[in-house]
């Protein structure tokens, strides 16, 4: 049986770790996910990811990420106005402060572009149970497919991706 092709939205926190010169484990895991788990699947990138990478203050870090991002040739989500509406709705439903607007806009992009998973290294803000619960409840009610939200290792395990 042919393996299912998944759509994987890679968040900025994921791309940034590719340029991590200090934490070898995180960098290696990120490369493994990108080079071993992703090739048979669709990699999605939103304009938000590009904007955040461009705002990375360290020029050397930015150069490395930009080079890999271009080489990867991901599917670009383009302008998705509905992502803004979803982010606003999630912000209200979760009762979160305004600081989470951009994080939830990433989730909005992942939902609108029908991603099976949002992959991030941000366990403090995004990949946490409360966010997953609110996103799942919202998507169920709106009859949308809820993406899994997790760290690379978690997503690889949930979707049985080989790393």
């Amino acid at each position, binding site marked *: 049986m042919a393996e299912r092709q998944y759509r994987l939205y890679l968040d900025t926190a994921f791309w*940034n770790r590719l340029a991590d010169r*200090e934490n070898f484990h995180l960098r290696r895991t990120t490369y493994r996910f990108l080079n071993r788990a992703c090739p048979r699947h669709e990699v999605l990138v939103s*304009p938000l990811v590009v*904007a955040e990478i461009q705002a990375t203050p360290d020029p050397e870090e930015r150069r490395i990420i930009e080079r890999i991002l271009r080489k990867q040739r991901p599917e*670009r989500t383009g*302008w998705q106005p509905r992502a803004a509406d979803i982010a606003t709705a999630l912000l209200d439903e979760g009762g979160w402060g305004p600081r*989470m*607007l*951009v994080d939830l806009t990433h989730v909005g992009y992942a939902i609108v572009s029908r991603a099976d998973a949002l992959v991030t290294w941000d366990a403090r803000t995004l990949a946490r149970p409360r966010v997953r619960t609110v996103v799942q409840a919202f998507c169920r009610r709106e009859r949308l497919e809820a993406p899994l939200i997790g760290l690379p290792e978690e997503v690889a395990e949930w979707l049985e991706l080989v790393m």
Partner: protein
Amino acid sequence: MARTRDVVWENYRRARRKLNERLLKAKKEGRLREELRQMDREARAWWAKEGTPAKARRKAK
């Protein structure tokens, strides 16, 4: 023992905060959708700047 700084994390959070401020300002002004459109334009310009690797190779020939 002093904890080692996670520079990549700090850089990521700084970039995210910057973008959040931009989106919050747009949301307050009721133009969040338009701001995303503007970001898409900027992203398109970024992708077009050097082109994809294949495009760059074709240009070099």
